[in-house]
């Protein structure tokens, strides 16, 4: 292993330890309520109804862009 890779690995390890320690030592309040699928669907098709057309537009644009970029040039 090269020296710069070792530094990167050490930095990432320190970052993980810092994040994990901050999550572990936070006093999380215990909550029993769980979000169910009905609540998600009510939110998806109610308050955040713009998300579905946005996803459709995004995927359509990505499909058109991907096909345009990857198409074969006719000689």
């Amino acid at each position: 292993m090269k020296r710069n890779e070792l530094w990167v690995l050490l930095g990432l390890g320190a970052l993980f330890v810092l994040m994990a320690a901050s999550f572990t030592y936070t006093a999380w309040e215990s909550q029993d309520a769980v979000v169910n699928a009905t609540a998600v669907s009510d939110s998806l098709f109610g308050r955040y109804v713009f998300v579905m057309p946005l996803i459709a537009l995004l995927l359509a644009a990505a499909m058109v862009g991907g096909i345009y970029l990857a198409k074969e040039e006719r000689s």
Partner: protein
Amino acid sequence: MIPPEYELALSALLFCIGLWGVVKRRNAIVVLMSIEILLNAAVMNFVAFSSYANDPSGQVFALLAIAVAAAESAVGVAIFLTLFKARGTIELDRIRLLRW
């Protein structure tokens, strides 16, 4: 219910693995996969806090983030395909199209 610190620690681990892949690897496909791992870490944070706060908004935006990740990988793979046709490699060290 899983305690939120476990989910967040797993998310942090995923983030570090993805960051390692982005920094260390030179193959463009592997770097794209590592970016997907980074996005998955963010999605896991969305879901963890959504579950913790008992608010479904986080899961709705997790769905949006998954769609963004799918679009990004589709365009990325198309770009790499074009690059491979033009240059014969997708090693990121050898592609200097954007270097001034």
